[in-house]
């Protein structure tokens, strides 16, 4: 199993400028064989959804350390659905308190990752999800 041939968009929605995690994840996914596109900082959910469509990605990974993860996840899910792209898998990482995980899953996040998780566990989980 690998991520060969999988296209993944790593995106930073909202206003926070913490990009270390996003860049680490982008490189880790590349090293696992994926084709990775990174949006850069401070993108709107609408922009992220449009890039996801144009680039025909298999998954969008949001990196959020601002605390606004609930709104940003919901909004991204809504924008993807509007573009007939609700089948694109969605992951979230960053500073996400565990009490919010259930709600994010219900909103459509297929995986939630925090700095406590080892990097290879994160990559393995993404790999398992996209190859399922």
């Amino acid at each position, binding site marked *: 199993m690998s*991520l*060969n*041939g999988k*296209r993944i968009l790593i995106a930073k929605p909202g206003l926070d400028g913490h990009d270390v995690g996003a860049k680490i994840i*982008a*490189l880790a*996914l*590349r*090293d*696992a*064989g*994926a*084709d*990775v*596109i*990174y*949006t*850069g900082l401070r993108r709107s959910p609408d*922009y992220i959804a*449009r*890039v996801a*469509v*144009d*680039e*025909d990605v298999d998954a969008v990974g949001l990196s959020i350390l601002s605390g606004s993860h609930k709104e940003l996840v919901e909004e991204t899910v809504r924008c993807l659905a509007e*573009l*007939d*792209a609700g*089948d694109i898998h969605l992951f979230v990482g960053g500073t996400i308190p565990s009490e919010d995980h259930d709600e994010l899953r219900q909103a459509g996040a297929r995986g939630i990752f925090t700095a406590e998780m080892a990097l290879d566990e994160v990559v393995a989980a993404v790999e398992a999800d996209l190859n399922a």
Partner: protein
Amino acid sequence: MSETSRNPRRALSRALTRIANADVAETLAQQSGATTPEMSRIGVTGAPGAGKSTLIARLAKLRKVEEHKIAVLAIDPTSPVSQGSILGDRIRMDSIADDPDIFIRSIPSRRAHDGLTDNTADLLNAMEGHGFDEVILESVGVGQAEYTIRTLVDTVVLVLLPESGDAIQAMKAGILEMADIYVVNKADLPGAELMAAEIAQVAAHQSADDWTPPVISTSRDDPNGFAELDAAITAHTEWRKTHLDETASRRARARYQAQGLLSRRIDEIVDADSSLLDLDPQGLFDALIDKLNPKSRGA
């Protein structure tokens, strides 16, 4: 997910994925026959980091006049270690990336070693089929020798850097002769003027059929250079209409495509049975010829 999404952008982008992923047999099966291309194709090539993506962003905006629909196909290198890639051109195209009328697609180079990617010609044709008037193709940052982009586009723009003294040497050796327009980018850096003057000297010798490749200095923050580049591309497009040898151009495309498909088919055969590689050169050659014959395929 089908390619008949109610969102036409999605349908196009899914079609592009299918074409990019097609193996040799699939690629052959989906050829729709040679057509005369209507969409103009601009190729932007040059060394890694020369500023190609940044320049394409400026250029695409200028060329998107009125109803003119522009697409960008940006190729980034695949890591030979993981086969993965960071498709980084797009982030440099930031300033146009939020223009919903400009379609940008990033593609990894995969096994291609010529600065392009497998099935580039078919990707361009698909974009044409979706109604784009013009496509700008960004090659992987290449060294001096890879000019296959020439066979797939109408206008080749070579982006050079002020400090690349090597480029001047190469040009004197005739290697850079394939470009239609030279750009000395990052003209804000020292050495740009000298560089532009030296290239202009070489380009003057390269003039054929009344086209002397112009040498244009550009810099990220100076709109004049990009306006000049835009005008030069338009001038070259016009010139080409009356000077293009259609037969030669079609044949060059056919040759390039056949070479690419054959080389990929050889990879497919060898990947399926790497013990072939233990044969001596003649034995390997004969075995490959045998297996390339479709009648023995799968045998």
